[in-house]
C-alpha cells in the first residue's frame, strides 16, 4: 500500500475538520445534481417513450373532422402532396352507463377497420384481442378506463350510441396514441373513471350512425418533406363542403399538447433549478476555500519555499474541491435516481404509455458530474489563483490588518452612529466585504424565490377554481345534444328530474380570420344575460352579451392581432362557405382554450338557419341528482354530459395530492440551500472573528452579547434577502406562468401575501436553526488561546 503523501494527509485532515461545512456544500450540490438528473431523465423518458410509441402506432400528423364526408373523397385526400397515409373514421361522443356508478361516464366511440389495422393511429393491444368481424357487440376500451373500473376482456358494459343503448362485450384492452393523456369534456385533469374511449368496427358504427360510405373524421401521416400548412389548407378545401371544422396538427391535438406542456415544464426546470444550486455551491466553495487559504498563507509560503510547485499547490486545493463535489454528486445521483423512479410512476398515473422507464443512461450521470465539478472548480478558481499568486516570502508574513471604513465616510468628524458598538462591529464587517455580503444575501434570497415559484401555483389554481367554477361556468352539468335542436328543447331539459334551472347554448365550429392569421374555434352563443354560465371581462365581471358582434378571449384576440373595435372575418364550418365580417366588441378572460362568444341571437343570424341550440347548462338539485343521472343515461337525444361539479372535485383532489408532493420537495430544497448558505457564512465569520469574539468574552461580555454580533450580521443579510427573494420569486413566477401558457390553458399569475410570508418563514426558520448551531460554538470559544497568539 502506498502511503498518502503529506499533502494528501493534510487534505484528509482538512476535510475531517471541515466536515460539517463540506457536507452542507455537498448537499447543495446534491440538490443540483438531483434536480438535473430528475429533469433531464424525465424529459428523456417522456420524449423517447412518446417518440417510440407514436412511431409504432403511426400517430397522425394532421387531424380533421367533418359532419359527413363521402368515403370517395379519401382518394383526393391521399393525393395531396406530402400525405403518406390516410385513415378515415367515424368518431362520436357517447354516454357510457357503468353498473354501480351513478354518474354517467362520457366517452368517444371510434371506428377501426373491419379488416386489418388502421393506417394511422393504430392501437396498442395490452390484452385480449380486437373485435371479430360480424360481431356487432364487440369493442375494445382504453386501459386507463378499464383499470379504473377493473374491466377485463370478457366483461360487459352499456353505452348509448346514437340514442340506442347497446350492451358491449370487451374483447381487448388498448392504448391509443390519441389518448396518452385522456381528458373528458369539461375536465381539467384526467378522470379515468368517467372518460372512456371505445373502438368498434367501422361497419358497426356505419350502421349505428347511418354513415354508410361516409366518414366524419380523418387522420393523416405526412412524409418527411411534406409542407404541413399546405396539406392542412388543401385538406380544409376538400372537407369544407362536408362540414369540415378545420384541420389541425399535433400542436393542437389535446393529448399531445398536454404532453408537450409537461415537457416544456421539465425543460424549464432543467434550465432554471439546477443552475441555481450549482451557482450557490460555487459561491460556497469559493467562500470556504478563500478562508482556508487565508488561514494557510504561512503554510503555503512554507511549501513554496521548500520547493513545492504552484501546480502542486493548486492541485491540492482543487482536490479538496473535487472531494466535496464527489460527495455531492454521489448523494445527488442516488436521490435523483430514486426520485426519478417515483416521478415515472407518477407519470404512469396520468399518461398512458405501454411502458415508461426513467432514463438512467450513464451519460446523464456523466453530464451531471462534469457540470458539478465545473461549477465547483469555477467557484474555487479565484481562491486557488490567490494561493498560486502568493510569493513565498510574502506568504510567510502575516497579512496586513484588515482596513475598515466608517459607515458614512466622516472618520474625522465627531459623528457617532446611534448603534451600540457591538452592532457597529457587525455592520462594518458587512460593508467590509460587500461582494460576499451581496452574494450571501442573494444566496439566501434564492430559496425564498424558489419557494414562491413553486407555491404560487396553488394561489393561481385557487384563483382559477374560483374564476372557472364559481364565477364563469357555475353549472353543475352541461348537457350536449346529439344534433342541434330547436329552442324549445331547453324546456325538455328543464323538465328533467332534479334540474332547477337550464340555460341553452349554441356551439358552432368556425374559422376566424384576420388577414393571413386564422384560427379554428368554437363560437358559443348564449343568452345575452346569463346567470348560470357567464362570460367574464378582463376584470372578471360578467358581461351582458351585445346583440351583435363577437367577444374573443384575450389569447385568441392576440393570436389574430385584433383589438376591440376591429372587424374579424368569421366563416362557419357548416359547409356553406359564407364569410361574414363581425366586429370584435370585447375581450374576455378565460383560462382554458381559445374562446369566442356571441349572443345566441347574433350567432343564429350569422348561421342563417334559424334558432338552434346545441345543449344546455343546468343547475341540479343535489337530492335528485341520481335521478338526473339515470335519466341522462336513458335519453337518446343527449350525446354527451360534462359534470362540472365532479370535475372540480377531481381537480381539487389531484391538486391537493400535488401540493403535498411539491411542498415536501421544494421545502427540502429551500431548507438545504438556506442551511448551506447560512451555516457556511456563519462558520466563516466565526473563523475570521474568533479572536475578536473571544476578546469580547474576556472583557466580560456575555455569550449572548457576543453571539449577537454574529447574529446581527447574519440577520441583516437574511432580512435583506427577503424582499429580494420576493422580487426574484415573482419574476421566476412570471416566467413559469408564461412558459405554461398554451392554447389549451394558461395559469394566471396570482401570488397571495401568505405565499410570500410562508416562503420567508421557512427560510427564516432554516436560517435561525443554522445560526443557533453556530452559536453553540461561540459558547465554547477558547478565551485564553486568543490572548497568546497574534492573528
Amino acid at each position: 500500500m502506498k502511503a498518502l503523501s503529506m499533502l494528501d494527509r493534510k487534505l484528509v485532515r482538512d476535510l475531517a475538520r471541515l466536515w460539517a461545512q463540506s457536507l452542507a456544500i455537498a448537499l447543495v450540490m446534491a440538490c443540483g445534481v438531483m434536480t438535473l438528473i430528475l429533469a433531464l431523465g424525465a424529459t428523456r423518458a417522456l420524449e423517447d417513450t412518446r417518440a417510440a410509441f407514436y412511431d409504432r402506432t403511426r400517430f397522425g400528423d394532421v387531424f380533421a373532422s367533418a359532419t359527413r364526408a363521402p368515403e370517395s373523397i379519401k382518394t383526393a385526400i391521399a393525393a395531396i402532396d406530402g400525405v403518406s397515409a390516410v385513415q378515415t373514421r367515424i368518431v362520436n361522443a357517447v354516454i357510457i352507463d357503468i353498473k354501480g356508478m351513478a354518474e354517467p361516464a362520457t366517452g368517444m366511440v371510434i371506428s377501426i377497420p373491419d379488416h386489418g389495422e388502421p393506417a394511422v393511429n393504430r392501437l396498442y393491444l395490452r390484452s385480449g384481442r380486437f373485435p371479430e368481424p360480424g360481431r356487432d357487440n364487440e369493442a375494445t376500451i382504453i386501459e386507463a378506463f378499464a383499470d379504473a373500473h377493473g374491466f377485463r376482456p370478457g366483461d360487459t358494459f352499456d353505452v348509448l350510441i346514437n340514442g340506442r343503448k347497446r350492451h358491449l362485450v370487451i374483447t381487448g384492452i388498448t392504448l391509443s396514441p390519441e389518448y396518452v393523456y385522456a381528458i373528458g369534456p369539461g375536465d381539467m385533469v384526467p378522470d379515468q373513471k368517467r372518460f372512456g374511449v371505445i373502438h368498434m368496427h367501422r361497419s358497426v358504427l356505419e350502421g349505428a350512425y347511418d354513415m354508410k360510405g361516409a366518414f366524419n373524421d380523418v387522420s393523416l401521416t405526412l412524409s418527411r418533406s411534406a409542407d404541413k400548412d399546405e396539406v392542412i389548407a388543401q385538406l380544409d378545401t376538400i372537407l369544407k363542403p362536408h362540414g369540415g371544422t378545420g384541420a389541425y396538427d399535433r400542436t393542437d391535438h389535446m393529448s399531445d399538447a398536454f404532453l408537450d406542456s409537461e415537457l416544456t415544464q421539465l425543460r424549464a426546470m432543467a434550465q432554471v433549478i439546477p443552475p441555481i444550486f450549482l451557482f450557490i455551491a460555487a459561491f460556497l466553495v469559493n467562500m470556504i476555500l478563500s478562508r482556508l487559504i487565508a488561514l494557510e498563507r504561512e503554510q503555503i509560503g512554507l511549501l513554496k519555499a521548500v520547493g513545492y510547485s504552484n501546480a502542486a499547490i493548486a492541485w491540492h486545493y482543487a482536490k479538496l474541491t473535487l472531494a466535496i463535489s464527489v460527495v455531492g454528486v454521489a448523494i445527488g445521483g442516488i436521490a435523483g435516481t430514486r426520485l426519478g423512479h417515483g416521478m415515472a410512476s407518477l407519470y404512469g398515473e396520468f399518461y398512458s404509455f405501454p411502458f415508461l422507464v426513467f432514463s438512467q443512461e450513464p451519460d446523464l450521470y456523466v453530464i451531471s458530474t462534469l457540470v458539478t465539478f465545473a461549477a465547483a472548480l469555477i467557484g474555487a478558481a479565484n481562491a486557488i489563483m490567490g494561493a498560486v499568486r502568493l510569493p513565498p516570502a510574502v506568504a510567510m508574513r502575516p497579512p496586513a490588518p484588515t482596513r475598515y471604513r466608517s459607515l458614512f465616510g466622516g472618520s474625522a468628524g465627531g459623528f457617532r452612529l446611534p448603534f451600540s458598538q457591538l452592532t457597529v462591529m457587525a455592520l462594518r464587517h458587512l460593508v467590509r466585504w460587500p461582494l460576499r455580503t451581496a452574494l450571501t444575501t442573494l444566496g439566501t434570497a434564492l430559496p425564498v424565490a424558489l419557494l414562491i415559484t413553486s407555491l404560487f401555483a396553488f394561489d393561481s389554481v385557487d384563483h382559477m377554481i374560483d374564476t372557472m367554477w364559481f364565477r364563469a361556468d357555475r353549472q353543475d352539468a352541461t348537457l350536449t345534444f346529439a344534433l342541434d335542436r330547436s329552442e324549445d328543447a331547453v324546456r325538455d331539459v328543464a323538465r328533467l328530474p332534479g334540474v332547477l334551472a337550464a340555460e341553452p347554448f349554441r356551439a358552432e365550429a368556425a374559422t376566424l380570420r384576420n388577414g393571413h392569421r386564422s384560427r379554428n374555434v368554437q363560437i358559443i352563443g348564449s343568452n345575452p344575460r346569463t346567470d348560470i354560465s357567464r362570460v367574464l371581462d378582463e376584470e372578471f365581471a360578467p358581461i351582458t352579451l351585445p346583440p351583435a358582434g363577437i367577444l374573443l378571449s384575450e389569447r385568441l384576440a392576440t393570436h389574430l392581432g385584433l383589438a376591440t373595435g376591429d372587424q374579424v372575418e368569421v366563416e362557419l364550418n357548416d359547409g356553406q362557405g359564407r364569410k361574414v365580417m363581425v366586429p370584435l366588441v370585447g375581450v374576455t378572460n378565460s383560462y382554458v382554450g381559445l374562446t369566442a362568444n356571441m349572443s345566441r341571437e347574433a350567432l343564429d343570424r350569422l348561421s342563417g338557419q334559424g334558432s338552434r341550440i346545441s345543449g344546455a347548462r343546468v343547475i341540479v338539485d343535489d337530492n335528485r341528482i341520481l335521478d338526473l343521472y339515470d335519466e341522462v343515461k336513458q335519453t337518446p337525444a343527449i350525446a354527451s354530459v360534462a359534470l362540472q361539479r365532479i370535475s372540480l372535485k377531481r381537480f381539487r383532489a389531484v391538486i391537493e395530492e400535488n401540493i403535498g408532493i411539491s411542498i415536501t420537495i421544494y421545502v427540502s430544497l429551500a431548507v438545504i440551500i438556506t442551511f448551506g448558505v447560512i451555516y457556511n457564512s456563519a462558520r466563516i465569520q466565526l473563523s475570521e472573528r474568533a479572536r475578536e469574539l473571544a476578546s469580547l468574552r474576556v472583557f466580560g461580555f456575555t455569550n449572548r452579547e457576543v453571539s449577537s454580533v454574529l447574529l446581527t450580521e447574519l440577520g441583516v443579510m437574511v432580512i435583506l434577502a427577503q424582499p429580494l427573494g420576493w422580487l426574484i420569486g415573482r419574476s421566476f413566477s412570471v416566467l413559469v406562468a408564461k412558459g405554461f401558457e398554451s392554447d389549451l390553458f394558461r395559469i394566471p399569475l396570482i401570488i397571495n401575501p401568505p405565499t410570500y410570508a410562508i416562503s420567508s418563514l421557512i427560510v427564516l426558520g432554516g436560517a435561525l436553526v443554522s445560526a443557533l448551531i453556530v452559536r453553540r460554538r461561540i459558547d465554547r470559544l477558547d478565551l485564553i488561546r486568543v490572548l497568546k497568539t497574534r492573528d
Partner: protein
Amino acid sequence: MLADLPSTKGTIFDISGLTKIYRTGEVEVRALNGVDLTLEAGEMAVLLGPSGSGKSTLLNIVGGLDRPTSGSVKFKGEELAGASDRDLTAYRRDHVGFVFQFYNLIPSLTAWENVALITEVASDPMTPSEALSLVGLEARMNHFPAQLSGGEQQRVAIARAIAKRPEVLLCDEPTGALDSATGIIVLEALARVNEETGATTAIITHNAGIRKIAHRVYSFLDGQIASCELNEERIKPSEVSW
C-alpha cells in the same frame, strides 16, 4: 518609600495554595504549584519570572478567565475558584480591566469606539474621550487600529481597560511587542492611571528594569513564588533602563 503603599485600603486579592495542573494525554504540567500571594488595593505589582514559570496562568485565574485546579482566590473576600461561568463573566465585566501583549483591539472599531464598547456596558465609566486623553491619544480618536502604531494601539487598549474605572487592572506583557521608547510611554500611561484611578495594577513583564516602578515585585519560578520584595523607592517609567 513604604508610606506610599496604600495598604490602608485593605487587601483586594488573597490567594492561597493556588495550583493549576494541565493534563495533555499522559503528560502533566504543574503551571502553578501552591502559590500564596496578596495584592493590596491600589498598589502596583510587577510579576517577574522565566518563561513558563506560571505568570500568565496566575493572571488569567485572577482575571476570571480560568479556574484553578485547587486552592483559593479571594477577591474582596469573595471566592473566585468555584464561581460559575456567568459569575466570572460578571466579575470581569464589573471589576477587571485587561491589557495584553497583542492589544486585542477590535479592528472594525475606531479607537473611540473600542473604548466605548466597554463604557457602554459599565456602571460608572469615564467617557471614552476622557480615557483616551489619560493615555494621550485624544487626537487619534477616530482612527481604526490598522491606522495606529503598535504603541498607540496598546495605549488604546489601556484606555479601554481603564475607562470603566476597574478596581483591578491586569497587564500581561503590555510592552512585550514594543520598542523601549514606546514601552516607556505605555508604562507612563499605566502609572498615571494607577495613580489617578487607584486601580490595583498587576503587570507581567520580562524586563527586570520595570520592577522599580512597582510597589511590590513577585518573582516566579517553576510555578511558585520565589520571592516577594517591596520597593522602598519607586522610579518614574521614564527612568527605566530598558
